């Protein structure tokens, strides 16, 4: 402090620029320099190079801060860049006078942050987007340069205050087709990036360790005074993983609460909507600048943020109820006022022009259940999210019987179910209570979701509607037969996955029966089931090691498996299980659906060791061909892991309710 020196602002600016170029050059070439030095066996220590480059960037920031201060001092002395010089017509560029500044104090980037915050505050307070834009044109670059600079970030967000969170409202265009100009977008992007970076920073040590973002900012973010503006910072800010997951979770809760409380979450209306075209355009504008959707999208990208929200045992269900809903669209408008009085004499008409907004909601629901399975806290939150989503869906089904959730949300529910088959399968026969816990109540086991069977029924009633959806889901379950066989053998507990899957299959069938589908629809279901069997990547047929996924070999295998008429003989010859069936078509269907996955499971579990020259197995994956049928026929009574092959296959058929 107090180290005053005289400087020429223009010269200082030039010096800063050259320092910055030097830093850039070094940063760009440093990998090559290190590589060459090592190659030449240089004894110069290059390991400190990255550190030196980082220090050079700090120097650039310091000099930049001093330069900004020098110009500021010059302006305080009455200098203006554009002024009328004597004898010259019109404005001309003038050099600033020399000034004296405190070299040490102004060299700290915290000062720059403080000044940028002041600039921002003044510009936003002006309430004129044009003025604000001019005042802010240098801000994005400064914010970007200091993204990783804690001193700057702390000073900027402390100085900018909650006003910065309302930048979107100050900057939006009052007319025209776009809501934000390119310059405004640049400011919002930079502010969003800065906020995201700051959200991940911590200050202090030990017990004093706390978020760098000041309490006022954090309160402003979640205080809902202007949720739409906050949402725009998130929309234009970086991808979800660049944010602190806790902050995104808090933001999500705040947004959902604001939405539920009927607060203004939409972009500001601009002028009166004169025509039907205006009204429908405004609906599209609402969809494009949807603040809640923006936050949900970022939280979904982050993953953990979504799990913090729905995985909280105390509040997760409340938010799951808001998300699992059919109201994810823009409000729509009353077309009445735009119709001639002849057509429409008066009174309110049903709202029209709603734009679907369920995509971010659906993505959020998926992310909430997609933690890696295991014993981690993240896996725990994921399991609780499953419990809550199932409960919320069941409640929706009950309260709005006959109402369908949006397609995308139903897709997420199927994702939840597909990812948690073993959880649902162990839950399916009981109706005690729901909750997340560790399998068998052992702390070394993964977290699982247990739901009451009533709730599971409610979930499937919503998730599965069309015959093709039932077919696809059954196909998915059938494709897991091999995994279930292997898991039953390998799991150290006395659990029978195959049997539990059978129970779940029964529930799906009950739900399907309640639909009373007709004959042709059943054919659709069958087609979808077979398609899913072929497409599923885990276990079963999806795991076939096709070397060329779409080549002629693939189709040959599929046709062989499907038992096209030309290949009927191949399938029927010597098939020992044929005697069990009266209907040959049904038999082929079962060869396709159960035997291959069963053999696959036995191979996976190490119970079957295929001969080295077997053509029905390649790289550990079982291939449905004629040789496999022969092998199965010859080994029908051979015992594997204590039971005959026929026993295994029959049990799998039973579990999957495949008897004709």
């Amino acid at each position: 402090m107090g180290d005053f020196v005289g400087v020429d602002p223009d010269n200082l600016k030039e010096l800063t620029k050259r320092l910055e170029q030097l830093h850039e050059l070094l940063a760009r070439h440093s990998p090559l320099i290190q590589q060459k030095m090592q190659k030449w066996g240089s004894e110069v220590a290059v390991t400190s190079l990255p550190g030196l480059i980082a220090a050079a960037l700090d120097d650039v920031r310091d000099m930049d801060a001093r330069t900004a201060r020098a110009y500021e001092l010059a302006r305080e002395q009455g200098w203006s860049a554009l002024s009328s010089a004597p004898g010259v017509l019109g404005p001309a560029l003038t050099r600033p006078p020399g000034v004296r500044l405190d070299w040490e104090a102004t060299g700290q980037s915290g000062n720059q942050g403080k000044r940028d915050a002041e600039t921002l505050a003044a510009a936003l307070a002006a309430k004129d987007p044009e003025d604000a834009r001019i005042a802010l044109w240098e801000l994005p670059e400064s914010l970007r340069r200091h993204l990783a600079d804690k001193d700057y970030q702390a000073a900027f967000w402390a100085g900018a205050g909650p006003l910065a969170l309302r930048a979107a409202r100050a900057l939006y265009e009052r007319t025209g087709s776009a809501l934000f100009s390119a310059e405004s977008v640049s400011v919002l992007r930079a502010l969003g990036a800065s906020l995201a970076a700051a959200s991940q920073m911590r200050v202090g040590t030990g017990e004093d360790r706390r978020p760098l973002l000041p309490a006022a900012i954090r309160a402003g973010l979640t205080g809902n005074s202007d949720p739409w503006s906050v949402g725009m910072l998130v929309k234009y800010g970086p991808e979800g993983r660049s944010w602190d997951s806790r902050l995104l979770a808090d933001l999500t809760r705040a947004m959902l609460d604001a939405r539920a409380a009927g607060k203004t979450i939409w972009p500001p209306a601009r002028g009166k909507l004169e025509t039907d075209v205006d009204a429908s355009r405004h609906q599209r504008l609402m969809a494009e600048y949807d603040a809640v959707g923006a936050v949900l999208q970022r939280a979904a990208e982050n993953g953990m943020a979504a799990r913090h929200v729905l995985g909280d045992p105390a509040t997760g269900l409340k938010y799951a109820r808001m998300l699992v809903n059919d109201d994810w669209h823009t409000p729509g408008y009353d077309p009445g006022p735009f119709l001639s009085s002849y057509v429409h004499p008066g009174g309110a008409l049903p709202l029209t022009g709603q734009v679907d907004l369920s995509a971010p909601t659906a993505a959020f629901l998926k992310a909430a259940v997609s933690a890696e399975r295991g014993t981690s806290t993240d896996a725990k939150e994921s399991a609780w999210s499953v419990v809550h989503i199932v409960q919320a869906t069941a409640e929706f089904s009950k309260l709005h019987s006959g109402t369908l959730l949006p397609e995308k949300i139903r897709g997420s529910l199927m994702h939840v179910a597909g990812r948690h088959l073993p959880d649902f399968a162990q839950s399916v026969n009981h109706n005690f209570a729901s909750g997340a816990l560790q399998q068998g109540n052992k702390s070394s086991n993964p977290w699982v979701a247990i739901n009451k069977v009533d709730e599971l029924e409610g979930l499937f009633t919503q998730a599965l509607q069309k015959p093709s959806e039932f077919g696809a889901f059954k196909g998915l379950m059938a494709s897991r037969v091999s995994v279930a066989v292997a898991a039953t053998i390998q799991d150290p507990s006395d659990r029978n996955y195959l049997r539990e899957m059978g129970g779940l299959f029964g529930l799906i069938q009950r739900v399907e029966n309640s639909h009373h589908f007709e004959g042709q629809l059943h054919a659709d279901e069958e087609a979808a089931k077979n398609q899913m069997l072929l497409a599923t990547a885990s276990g079963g047929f999806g795991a076939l090691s096709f070397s060329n996924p779409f080549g002629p070999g693939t189709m040959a295998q599929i046709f062989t498996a499907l038992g096209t008429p030309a290949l009927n003989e191949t399938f029927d010859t010597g098939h020992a299980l044929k005697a069990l069936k009266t209907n040959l078509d049904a038999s082929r269907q079962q060869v396709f659906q159960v035997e291959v996955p069963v053999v696959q499971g036995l191979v996976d579990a190490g119970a079957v060791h295929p001969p080295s020259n077997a053509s029905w197995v390649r790289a550990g994956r079982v291939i449905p061909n004629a040789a496999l049928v022969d092998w199965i026929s010859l080994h029908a009574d051979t015992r594997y892991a204590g039971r005959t092959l026929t026993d295994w296959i029959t049990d799998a058929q039973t579990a999957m309710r495949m008897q004709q």
Partner: protein
Amino acid sequence: MKAKKLVALTMCLPLLLAGCTEERRLPSTDDEVTKRDAALVAVVQCLVDHGEVPSAHLEHQPWLRDKKVQPGAELVTWRSDHEETVYAGKTLQVWEDEATAGWPGWRCPL
């Protein structure tokens, strides 16, 4: 353990088949589940009361408080891990199925 499990798996097979071959349209699923819930609690209580469940299987099990079986999600996941475990000559699954079939008249036979 493995062999025992597989034997048990085979043992329960006829029962499974019997339950599955008929196209079941239960008059009320709720009734079935309510019976099954009550039967499971009674069966486990019966086996615990008569010392048929080894103490290692009951360590740190939150559903057992003061030797009383508490219904809940914790019991469901424990049951799953032991469905093929043989207690007093039968797997837990068979115990549960038999008690459900006889409910509400089922009494602990031990």
